[in-house]
């Protein structure tokens, strides 16, 4: 059986670029309240960086690092965090989705209260969710499942 994934050139380049794409996604998320971008776009970029790994190295190598269960757990954590931030306003301010945290100065990284927390929650949710969908599609493409076939 030949080695999974693409050629050596693609793998080498991928090792360099994946971290840069990941960093760019984190930047987009953390500066979502200052510059264009936000949780959704940053989440998709980070999902794309993992998809980049899957495409270059093959799904087995990637699945060894990040299993589908991990992805599902992270996505659910994002959902719970979003609800938690929304409930924070209900408990401390009296209204659902009230911005209770201190606003800070505009143009600071840690400003705007709950918006940055919401961005991080949406980023976890979108990134993990889209990567889970891609993993589901990629795993389905696997033609022969020997272990599954035997246990049946």
């Amino acid at each position, binding site marked *: 059986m030949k080695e999974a994934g693409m050629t050596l050139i693609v793998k080498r380049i991928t090792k360099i670029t994946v971290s840069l794409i990941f960093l760019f996604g984190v930047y987009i998320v953390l500066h979502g*309240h200052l510059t264009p971008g936000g949780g959704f776009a940053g989440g998709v970029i980070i999902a794309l960086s993992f998809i980049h790994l899957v495409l270059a190295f093959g799904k087995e190598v990637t699945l060894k690092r990040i299993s589908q269960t991990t992805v599902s757990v992270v996505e659910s954590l994002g959902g719970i965090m979003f609800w938690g931030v929304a409930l924070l306003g209900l408990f401390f301010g009296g209204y659902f989705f009230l911005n209770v945290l201190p606003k800070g100065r505009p143009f600071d990284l840690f400003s705007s209260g709950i918006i940055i927390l919401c961005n991080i929650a949406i980023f976890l949710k979108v990134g993990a969710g889209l990567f889970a969908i891609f993993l589901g599609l990629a795993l389905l493409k696997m033609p022969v499942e020997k272990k599954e076939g035997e246990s049946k």
Partner: protein
Amino acid sequence: MIEFHVILILMIVGAIVAMELEDMLSSVIALGAVGIGLTLEFLLLRAPDLAITQLVVEILSLIILIRATVGVRMPQERIKGRVGYFIFALIFSAIFLFFSYKAIAELPVFGVPLMKMGSLYIKEAVAKTGATNIVAAIILDFRGYDTLGEATILFTSVIGVLAVLRLQGRKE
């Protein structure tokens, strides 16, 4: 505004090419051209948030579409020589164009009279939320409920996809 219309025409051409091509891969690439055109349109309309989101989602859907369609040849059904179809298509196109012209002619010029809510958001967003990106201030603070609903929709769709595509428990 001439570049706006040029890109619109290119997008329409790309969509027609995507429909008419026999090869699925070429079709998907033509669709990607349409998506890039939409990104440029958003940039020309000064909506960088939408442009970034459209670009990354376009790339993701392009990857999934290419994975799904590589090596697949869809059977093509060509409608030929039917005069009736042609006449009906012409009639409905004329009706659609007439009513859309009527509807669009009534619209105000793009972005000129600022709506009441919009002007309020622009005036008070920075003071009330501390976020200098007004789009983030609107979707995560003023309109948090909508974003919560959107997140719920995404969660449901992911659960649906994983339930349909799961490997364990699938009976062949």
